[in-house]
């Protein structure tokens, strides 16, 4: 099938570029690692508070860090696309018969792969700190974080194709990711938040992702919140890929 073949082809191109620059993987892991070392210890006394979810400081905090990694790690993908717009690469690809969906999906899959790899590294590093997780839980949580990467990357590409310049892309990324992150309960669980804040957070899809991830780390894969988080991300990812592919179809410079 043409779509599968084209997607594989585009994925291969960007995967090739990716493995030539492994430094990005290390940089992507660095930030959550600093949180793990410099911030997570502060949570230990707070973990005893009323309303703090069960599981201990690391099992509550690491899922949040992974969600953050999934989002921040993929939010910058638009910069490389804008560089390619400038080199004429995107225009050159668009004039070939290659599928527009593949142009977006192939490269977003590469980003998804990169996010999953970084997440795995982070989980392995966090284990000695006192993180505990079932092997099947690792697989499920990696799929969940991978979806966050796919979703964020697709949105990032669509935005980059629309604005076409780093000067516009950077402020959009920075001003939109921070509130989404704060309202997802990444740093501290939203269950200890006042009611009005919880109400606002309820419309944030990442809240459900964090919730799902925490249940996975607590060996509750069967909890309905896990399926809920995965379904929400899956639906949004499909929408984002379709919207992004449409942008590829009509990218006008």
């Amino acid at each position, binding site marked *: 099938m043409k779509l599968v073949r084209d997607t594989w082809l585009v994925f291969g191109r960007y995967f090739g570029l990716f493995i030539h620059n492994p430094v990005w993987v290390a940089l992507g892991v660095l930030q959550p690692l600093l949180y793990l070392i410099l911030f997570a210890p502060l949570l230990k006394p707070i973990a005893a508070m009323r309303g703090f979810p069960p599981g201990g400081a690391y099992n509550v905090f690491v899922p949040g860090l992974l969600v953050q990694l999934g989002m921040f790690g993929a939010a910058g993908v638009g910069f490389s696309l804008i560089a390619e717009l400038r080199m004429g690469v995107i*225009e*050159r690809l668009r004039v070939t018969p290659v599928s527009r969906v593949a142009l977006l999906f192939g490269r977003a899959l590469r980003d998804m792969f990169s996010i999953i790899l970084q997440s795995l590294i982070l989980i392995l590093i966090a284990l000695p700190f006192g993180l505990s997780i079932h092997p099947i839980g690792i697989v499920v949580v990696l799929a969940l974080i991978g979806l966050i990467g796919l979703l964020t990357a697709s949105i990032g590409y669509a935005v980059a194709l629309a604005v076409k310049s780093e000067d516009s892309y950077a402020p959009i990324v920075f001003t939109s990711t921070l509130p989404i992150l704060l309202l997802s309960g990444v740093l501290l669980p939203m269950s200890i938040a006042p009611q009005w804040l919880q109400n606002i957070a309820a419309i944030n899809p990442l809240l459900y992702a964090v919730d799902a991830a925490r249940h996975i780390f607590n060996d509750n894969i069967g909890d309905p919140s896990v399926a809920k988080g995965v379904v929400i991300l899956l639906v949004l990812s499909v929408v984002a890929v379709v919207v992004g592919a449409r942008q590829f179809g009509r990218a006008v410079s």
Partner: protein
Amino acid sequence: MEGTDSEAVIETRGLRRVFKTRKRQVEAVAGVDLRVQRGEIFGFLGPNGAGKTTTLRMLATLLPPSGGTARVAGCELSSEPGKIRERIGYVGQAGGADREITGRAELVFQGRLYGMPTSAAQKRAAELIEMLELEGAADRKVATYSGGQKRRLDIGLGLVHDPELLFLDEPTTGLDPQSRARVWDEVRSMHERGTTVFLTTHYLDEADALCDRVAIIDYGKIVAEGTPEELKRAIAGDVVSFSIAGEQQRALDLVKDQEFVREARLENGSVHLYVDRGEVAMPAILRLLDGARLQLMTVELHRPSLDDVFLRQTGRSLRETAA
């Protein structure tokens, strides 16, 4: 080749493109009727901002037209863009090769995009590398290429699938004279292999030396079309240009109503006269100026160039408007 029998590779009717900015609408292409025949090198000549690139991008399926119809490579632009993409090659101004990838890898990838199996794409890449004399550069990153090598690779990317029609957007802009000549050679050899080439340029000599037919576009409209010879012949006769110290306007007024002057213009401080026979007009002009005590600085008699065609059609000189 004359007449309506020959096959059109591009045929447009009333092709338009309007860009909306925040405050107003700009009509970049304002109703273009074109007919490009199979096998010819067709030049689209005009200053920057005339609508050349916009027209090209519409015909190459990159930009939807705001109005009008077009058939490209036997397919309807509005309904069959996918089929058109299989049959055309397009080399944009920016080129299209990624700086971080080797030229060979780009050519192979491009072949794969057109559905070739890997082995066929590798074989085709090797052919193009040899044809474009990129053997020494092919396995280096594109970032290390000279301007001429980069441009040849860009053209190679447009030729991977051996398209029947190749679009080249300002293929020689920014190149040194030697690399420019190389690109001309490539275009001519494509032509010999039967490929139709549609190129844009703001270089008059390029249009004159390379193209079988030329359309001159200005402010989104075609103002003249034909072979370079036909266009020049349309300005029958010769061109006499002279400059004088001061009082150009007075000099113009003095000569413009003479019976041997078909048309007179003041352009960039010199007076241009379109006359039937330059060798007859020249002495008469000199006598007139002398009699009026106007001091002649330079005088020149030449056959009409495409610049004269452009000047006459648009009232501006392309040499002045081109970057």
